């Protein structure tokens, strides 16, 4: 018999395997919450919302709603059995408004009916009387009036004021960056199924099952062990289902408790866009001092995010903006004020990057403006200001940069994308063409990995080996398209040396792995992969010990190989091993726990090591703009991104490509507009334009950095990839500025804001021409 050797290389980890649901996706057979066959007498919920942004609720007449066809039940705040506030960190998010109305679209009541259409028609029949108050709707007014949802937080290192006074050049300016609607293709949805003794099963499209469990338990006044949340997959999340999936689950659960029926609460696209929070828009003010070469000496930032009416996650989101307003650059003297502004608008929430992008774009604006002042290519200014790992290695929050791949990535990308020759060609093109102008920019991304709220950096996993050799896997992370389940299955199959299709991944369930964090902060694979690895390793080691003893061989002579389990000179199938262990009363199941090491952060001193490590990448984008209309096109993009040792290159590249385009959307065509009464005007895909297929650059090159394993002991030395690539899109926005600047030979700094819609671009062109 040909026995496999006692050592193998990596088997499934590192392979470009298809998404575990790929076949289900393409055949329409992978079910989402709204696709489960309805239960008998299932009913459907719709939310009635405030038509006014700010005021006092005088009367809520729901008689016609009750009488409408098919209506089963109607609820308001009075019908909440338990806690009525569902604020995730701080209170301030009432499930239904009672007295004070704080934004247009705030839930006032809900109706359940026999069909979705009946519920939606019934909800329109409410008569609402509200005494209107002055609504504070815009960020600038909130800044002026110091209306905050949370106190301002400051980070300081060195002496920024003295540094500014000593600087050769000094620039004061500001830029605005818009919010972003998540536009997950599957809207918010929950299905609640009542069980015995008041228990509740909740099928929910959420990134945060444990929080849904807690919220529903609190709202229903149940203990958490009676609520089970089940998430098989989401049709996209992007942060929008981190906290803001809770309300709809709670409302459906209240109906289920009252009626004994299964209740589906699915927001229509319109309601979803009106009632759920978005990425925070920011106004970023800066006061920067630099030397004659363009090297930054000191900088003062005020980063002001529009949080909406409640805190939600805004404390941490504005913090992350502050953590990223250095991007890849050393700031010797720095003070950053992070301001959390309150407005009578929907409460803004997590969105891929979690404030980081809004901070980072401020830094890249500053770099661009320095370049104009120094009359240099912005790329030179970028290189001049990079961190290193020696004297220029301490961040504004005192974390030391220990590994820094950005200079290498930037050098390789500059060469590979032929930056200098193209720069020359673009200059020539622009000289010959008065109408169409081209622009180019190469920008880096350094993004901190870990929840900055340290306690969230924990999760668990549960692995079962059955007696037929099949493996079942659960962990705390949720699947929203990012391929987490695929990667974690690869990790577990690697350990048992089986094909990853031998590992069945089932829905994330709070009754299997408890007390988990949201799947967020790009940390899904880092944490859940590691937890699952621990569980799988524990079972494997247990089996090795058992087999060694049972077969009287040295433990080194027991090996899990793709051909089976080699025990001395015999080869057993995994099924044989499992069965033998079972007969000998060896446990084949393991629950495990992982906590990210090394991290700590003291917010009172704004110092510590909030991040386990940094993800790095860089992108070069070339655009063309039409100076008559402000229209633009992406012409070419080149990206090198560092994912450490990739667990699945296909999935990682998918995250990079998709993140980049999502970021391009944020910075160009995606424009949120409200009217003067606080009504969202861009309330559907007809008016809110996420990128479509025609927006992708015709030339697009993405590669992984490769050969740079994570210096930290992450899962298989990989690096997180969920959020960082979004910020690669800043290069496209800077390239648009470069194109505009060419109109006046880069003598005048174009005060471009984001999103750079055709209108914003034309406005900036007019500013430069004036």
């Amino acid at each position, binding site marked *: 018999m040909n026995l496999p050797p006692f050592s193998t290389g990596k088997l499934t980890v590192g392979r470009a395997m*298809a998404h575990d*649901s*790929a076949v*289900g*996706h*393409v*055949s*329409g057979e992978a079910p*989402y919450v*709204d*696709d489960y*066959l309805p239960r008998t007498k299932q009913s459907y919920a719709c939310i009635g919302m405030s038509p006014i942004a700010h005021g006092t609720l005088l009367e809520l007449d729901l008689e016609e709603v009750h009488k409408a066809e098919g209506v089963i039940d109607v609820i308001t705040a009075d019908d909440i059995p338990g806690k009525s506030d569902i604020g995730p960190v701080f209170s301030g998010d009432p499930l239904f408004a009672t007295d004070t109305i704080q934004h247009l679209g705030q839930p006032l009541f809900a109706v359940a009916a026999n069909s979705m*259409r009946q519920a939606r028609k019934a909800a329109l029949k409410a008569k609402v009387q509200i005494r209107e108050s002055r609504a504070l709707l815009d960020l600038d007014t909130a800044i002026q009036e110091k209306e905050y949802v949370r106190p301002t937080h400051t980070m300081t290192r060195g002496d920024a004021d003295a540094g500014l006074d000593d600087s050769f050049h000094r620039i004061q300016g500001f830029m605005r960056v818009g919010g972003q609607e*998540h*536009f*997950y*293709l*599957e*809207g918010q949805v929950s299905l609640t199924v009542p069980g015995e003794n008041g228990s509740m099963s909740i099928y929910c499209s959420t990134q945060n099952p444990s929080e849904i469990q807690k919220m529903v338990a609190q709202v229903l006044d149940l203990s958490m062990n009676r609520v089970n949340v089940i998430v098989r*997959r989401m*049709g*996209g*999340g*992007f942060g929008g289902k981190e906290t803001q999936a809770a309300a709809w689950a709670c409302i459906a659960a209240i109906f289920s408790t009252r009626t004994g029926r299964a209740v589906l609460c699915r927001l*229509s*696209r*319109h309601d979803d866009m009106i009632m759920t929070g978005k990425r925070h828009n920011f106004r970023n003010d800066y006061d920067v001092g630099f030397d004659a070469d363009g090297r930054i000496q000191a900088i003062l930032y005020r980063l002001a995010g529009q949080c909406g009416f409640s805190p939600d996650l805004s404390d941490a989101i504005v913090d992350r903006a502050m953590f990223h307003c250095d991007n890849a650059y050393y700031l010797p003297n720095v003070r950053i004020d992070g301001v959390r502004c309150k407005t009578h608008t929907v409460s803004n929430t997590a969105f891929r990057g979690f404030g980081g992008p809004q901070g980072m774009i401020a830094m890249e604006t500053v770099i661009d403006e320095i370049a104009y002042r120094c009359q240099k290519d912005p790329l030179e200014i970028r290189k001049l200001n990079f961190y290193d790992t020696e004297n220029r290695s301490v961040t504004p929050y005192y974390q030391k940069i220990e590994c820094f791949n950005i200079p290498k990535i930037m050098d390789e990308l500059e060469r590979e994308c032929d930056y200098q020759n193209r720069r020359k060609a673009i200059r020539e093109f622009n000289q*010959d*063409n008065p*109408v*169409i102008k*081209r622009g180019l920019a190469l920008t880096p991304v350094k993004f901190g990995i870990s929840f900055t709220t340290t306690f969230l950096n924990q999760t668990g996993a549960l692995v079962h080996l059955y007696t037929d050799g099949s493996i079942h896997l659960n962990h705390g992370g949720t699947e929203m*398209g990012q*391929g987490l389940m695929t990667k974690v299955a690869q990790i577990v199959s690697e350990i048992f040396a089986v094909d990853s299709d031998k590992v069945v991944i089932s829905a994330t369930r709070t009754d299997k792995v408890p007390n988990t964090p949201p799947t967020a902060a790009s940390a899904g694979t880092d944490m859940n992969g590691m937890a699952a690895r621990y569980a799988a390793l524990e079972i494997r080691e247990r089996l090795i010990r058992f087999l060694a003893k049972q077969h009287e061989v040295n433990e080194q002579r027991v090996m899990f190989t793709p051909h089976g389990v080699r025990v001395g000179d015999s080869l057993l199938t995994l099924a044989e091993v499992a069965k033998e262990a079972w007969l000998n009363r060896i446990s084949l199941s393991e629950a495990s726990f992982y906590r990210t090491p090394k991290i700590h952060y003291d917010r009172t001193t704004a110092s510590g090591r909030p991040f386990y490590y940094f993800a790095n990448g860089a992108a070069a984008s070339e655009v*063309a703009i*039409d100076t*008559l*209309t402000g*229209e*633009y096109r992406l012409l070419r993009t080149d990206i090198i991104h560092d994912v450490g040792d990739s667990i699945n290159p296909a999935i990682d590249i*998918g995250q990079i*490509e*998709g993140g980049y*385009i*999502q970021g391009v959307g944020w910075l160009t*065509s995606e424009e949120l507009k409200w009217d003067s009464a606080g009504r969202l*005007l861009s309330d*559907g*895909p007809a*008016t809110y*334009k*996420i*990128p*479509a*297929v*025609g927006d992708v650059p*015709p030339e697009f090159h993405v590669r992984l950095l490769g050969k740079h394993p994570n210096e930290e002991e992450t899962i298989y030395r990989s690096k997180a990839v969920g959020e960082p690539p979004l910020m690669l899109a800043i290069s496209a926005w800077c390239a648009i500025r470069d194109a505009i600047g060419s109109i006046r030979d880069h003598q005048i700094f174009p005060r471009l804001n984001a999103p750079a819609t*055709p*209108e914003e671009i*034309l406005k900036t062109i007019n500013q430069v021409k004036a």
Partner: protein
Amino acid sequence: MIQFLLNNTPISYQMERPDLTVLDYLREYRYLRGTKEGCASGDCGACTAVLVEQGEHGLEYRNFNSCITFLGSLHGKQLITVEHLKDNDRLHPVQQAMVDQHGSQCGFCTPGFVMSLFSLYKTSQTGQITNHEENIREYLSGNLCRCTGYFPIVRAAEQSLADPGPDQFNNASREVSDILAKIDDLSESEPTNFHAPTGVRELARLRNDRPNARLLAGGTDLALEVTQQHRDLHEIIYLGRVQELRAFNRTETRIEIGAMVTLDRLDIELGDDFPELRALLKRFGSRQIRNLGTVGGNIANASPIADITPVLIAMNATCVLESFEGQREIPLENYFHGYRQTEIRDNEFIRCVNIPVPANNMHLKICKISKRLDDDISAVCLAALINVEDGKTIHIRMAFGGMAAIPKRAIHCEKTLLDQPLEPRVIEQAKAALDRDFQPISDVRASATYRMDVAKNLLDRICLELSGNSPVTRIDQL
């Protein structure tokens, strides 16, 4: 009873409500839940399915938005949904390509993409697909994906188009043709609130007898009343089976476009002769919308931001309105009275539009300005028919969408340009004249200032383009 093929199952269905959408029928009545609802407004493509009809050269497979299509309009056709694509256990080549190229992430938009790719695949089998890159973008223009950034989906399209061999649908095509051919017209003898007349006389009578019934053309706008405003449409007269309305006739001097000519067909019929019209039509709505949306519908809903009407007005089109009492032909520009107010009477319908064939030396210039390239509504749409001889403008008709409450001619601007040399001094005067022609509004798409600035700047663009050796003036030329 409406009759159609649902995948390979013949369906006879007595409709309770005439405004039931295909998507709701699939999901709520048939429990076919592979087809998803992403927006219920025809803007995201998650609900895309494929409609099969007998064409001149065999069956034609068109992708469409099932969320804004009423079930009754399927009568006599085959509906293919994502559940039907596999051949037993084997994935269809477009499905396999999506798996191979990692074309799905969250997967929610995927069935819609698969159906658009399927429609592209079937069309490419007929040899009509010439430029892969262009056609892929066109066929996918109405499908939004929030995860992938589209690259792997485009690669999947390329993979499936590399060798679009016969699939199980080729084998079944004769049988499907036979079944469809045997489906009779909808009978008016049954009590119904969904009427599908087959001739204009019958239509005129119905229109007269049932003044409250809504006329349904492509439905891409009308259906929004049902899916977005949750209103009921109690009675519908569907125009899709009226033969005369689908006519397209062309003589030496005149082009007659039946009201039910789809935007896709308009492109096929006129695109070669009017390249800027083709370019506009490639950006008109999405592929799915162009497969359903009609010229008559675009006129009848009287939207100030409809893209076809400025073009037709610039081309001096007339509009034929017909009723039981007869026909009348009016200049199209007179059709629009005010915001969504039109000339049409309660018992009339639009029969066709007629365009005088422009002389060879006429230039049809069209500029559509929107936030997004594909599937976006114009902030400003300019159309102008111009003749410049010896540097002098000897003919000009110019109309704008997005600049007023109706699609409207720029009369003052035209006058300023006419009989004058096409040069910067005159252009500046023409720009000033636009201030007299229009007072645009600010809305979600653009501010009034932007609209006016762009409208003026577009005169520069046109002047440059007509001046002979023009620099690059449009970014899609790069």
